[in-house]
């Protein structure tokens, strides 16, 4: 075993060991034909993943099952480890953005925004970002939150066997991604945000196209709700499964939609407003029981709230520059790069040395798709981070998965895992 990884036999413990140590056959068993002593059973150790059709994001769960009941579960993450934090130490701050795209790859722009805000906090320019840029960040961030939730709730339908709503949701996500592709040039790995603003201004017809897409998405969401929310089978599969109390959720460090499903109304956008979130009127939906259905319903409602924010942002967005006008932070326009010596040298220095950030450390946190997405940066004064750490929300959610699935059936593992919404890129980094 590499890296001292325990073998399945070493992991078996607790309840499983107790089951194993049972006498194989009761004394006198089988001698009498009418023996009504219970048949001896033994637990089965079974390996789920890392390559298993449901383990989207390569995670391995070593299960000890008694029949179909999970007795022991050992969740092993890290199969998608790509050294994000170490790579970031060798890249300039601007070069880290493409890496952040690959953290939570269903809402890349939220990671972009989170990282940019950490670097800006360290630079001390958080309050100097042009308003238009802040509105654009809210717009793309909320679109990404919708795509994140669309994927998650769609997949939750697929995981209990309803494949149709999944594809309806994916269709909506595709409309939104087409819009972002028009804006950023890439469908998935946008790398659109820069320190001090964003890479480019909104396209001319962005507002109109976004309103059209939102209208279509609302219709599709109503369709999905009609199909599964009142469906008895779906509700039976989701209601009361994998329940966690608010106290436990807080103790485990849960954040985001999963925490809100337990009834704790903690949302970074409301409680510690950043960008221009304090200017919008939106609600923070909370659940009551903290089961899988609540996690599903909270996400559905959050998409509607995100749409409200998007529409208000489209109404309020002011004209103006889309990035900070500071030659040390923003790249000069191409016309200056090609025609003036100052522009060319500024461009060259920024590309080669990166944005120089004064020594210090900063932790900046935003509301990501799965919860509080934090970036912790340490700078030694060069253009590259000395240390970069990501507080990945689903890494912290994952530690409670054994608690949620032990005692449930094998069939409940996948929906529970799906509603936790573990994204390999973000969890394993």
């Amino acid at each position, binding site marked *: 075993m590499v890296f001292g990884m325990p073998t399945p036999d070493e992991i078996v413990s607790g309840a499983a060991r107790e089951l194993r140590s049972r006498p194989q056959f009761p004394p006198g068993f089988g001698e009498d034909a009418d023996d009504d002593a219970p048949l001896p059973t033994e637990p089965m150790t079974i390996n789920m993943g890392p390559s298993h*059709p449901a383990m989207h994001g390569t995670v391995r769960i070593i299960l000890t099952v008694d029949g179909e009941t999970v007795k022991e579960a050992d969740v092993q993450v890290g199969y998608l480890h790509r050294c994000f934090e170490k790579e970031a130490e060798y890249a300039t701050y601007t070069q880290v953005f493409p890496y952040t795209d690959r953290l939570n790859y269903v809402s890349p722009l939220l990671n972009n925004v989170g990282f940019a805000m950490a670097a800006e906090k360290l630079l001390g320019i958080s309050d100097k970002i042009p308003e238009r840029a802040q509105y654009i960040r809210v717009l793309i961030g909320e679109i990404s939150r919708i795509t994140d939730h669309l994927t998650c709730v769609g997949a939750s339908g697929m995981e209990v*066997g309803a494949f149709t709503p999944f594809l309806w949701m994916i269709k909506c996500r595709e409309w939104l991604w087409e819009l972002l592709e028009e804006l950023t040039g890439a469908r998935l790995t946008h790398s659109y945000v820069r320190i001090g603003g964003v890479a480019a201004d909104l396209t001319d017809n962005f507002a109109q196209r976004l309103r059209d897409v939102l209208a279509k998405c609302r219709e599709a969401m109503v369709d999905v709700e009609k199909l599964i929310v009142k469906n008895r089978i779906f509700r039976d599969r989701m209601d009361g499964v994998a329940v966690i109390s608010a106290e436990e959720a807080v103790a485990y460090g849960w954040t985001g939609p999963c925490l809100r499903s337990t009834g704790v109304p903690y949302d970074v956008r409301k409680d510690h407003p950043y960008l221009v979130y304090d200017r919008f009127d939106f609600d923070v939906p909370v659940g009551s029981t903290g089961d899988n259905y609540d996690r599903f319903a909270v996400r559905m409602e959050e998409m509607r709230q995100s749409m409200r924010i998007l529409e208000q942002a489209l109404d309020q967005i002011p004209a103006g520059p889309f990035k900070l006008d500071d030659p040390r932070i923003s790249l000069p326009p191409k016309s200056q790069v090609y025609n003036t010596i100052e522009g060319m040298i500024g461009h060259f220095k920024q590309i080669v040395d990166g944005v120089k950030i004064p020594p210090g450390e900063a932790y900046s946190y935003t509301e990501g798709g799965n919860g509080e997405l934090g970036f912790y940066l340490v700078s030694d004064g060069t253009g590259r981070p000395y240390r970069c750490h990501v507080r990945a929300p689903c890494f912290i959610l994952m530690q409670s998965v054994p608690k949620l699935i032990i005692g449930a059936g094998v069939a409940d593992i996948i929906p529970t895992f799906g509603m936790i919404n573990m994204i390999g890129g973000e969890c394993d980094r």
Partner: protein
Amino acid sequence: MLEFLADHSAIAALLKVFFLLMAFVMPLASLSTWAERRQSAMMQDRLGPNRAEITIPGLGWTLRLWGITHFVADALKMAFKEDLVPSKVDRVLYGIAPIMAIAPVLITFAIVPFGSDLCVGKMTEIITSLEGCRRTIPLQVVRLDIGMLFYFALASLAVYGTTLAGWSSYNKWSLLGGLRASSQMMSYEVTMGLSLMGAFLYYGTLEPNAMVLAQGDNPLNWGLFYQPLGFILFLTAAIAETKRAPFDLPEGEPELIGYFVEYSGMRFGIFFLAEFIETIFLAAIVTTVFLGGWHVPGLHEDGFSFLKLPHIAVVLLRSAVWGGKILFLCWLQLLIRWTLPRFRPDQLMRMGWKQLLPLSLLNIVLTAAWVLWRSAH
């Protein structure tokens, strides 16, 4: 020719088997694989398989036909795949399992009446009843008095295919799938049998063709209206027997991958095909017992009341309508499959034993009381 067949019933039976399986069941099952994909694609706003086409050599014409020929490409792919047998499987049982899965369904088609009796010698005449016929050819492979019991007996054998496949594959996932399959199929067989008991009481026979005759050509007399509860219970239990969504727990794609996870190539193809043949068979049984079998609404032995038809036309029309009813029921099953989510094993068992079984017993009691009351008056 027809006289010869009427005299040699064994040869006639072989011909009927050949016609039923080669001209109806197998093409329909293959087409179902394509229809399922197209149907799901339509429901999900996708295109689905529409590219397969046939080029007619020499002429250069290309037939696309909405991709219907996809099933040919599919079958070729299955047939030419490597026959991969994992090293630790029980080779004998591993090999037998797919056959055990498909054979019972194919055999049970023998009792399905796919048309009314042919009156040899009066094919082109207008006849009012079959009474005057010297020799008839029944459009049913075998006419057994035990009829439906034969179906139950063979249907319970189908469970061996899935269970053996799950057990012999030497894979814990397929073992779990096989266990799910055996518990599910055995539980739902009970309801399946008992839910038809009401229909047996009502028709007073177990023989499928006699049931069809008892229903007559007036749709209001069809079993659906006299056994509505039995119809719903049987349809539910029989869909569970076919192991398709919402009862596809043995396959359970996101969790178990299925009892056939270690099967590939044509061996997997047989399981795949068996599932579709089961849906066709389910449609055939529902048609026979609840939807008037081969009866056409308003079509008597001598044609419609407003249009008299020769005997051969009546028989052909009936067979065609029988096929149409089956197509409708197959479509209905596809619709259900792509709409509903999947049960959990404990919910499935609870529904089978605590809800469907008492209801089917209630159905028997009600039907028996009604039959008794009817015979007393």
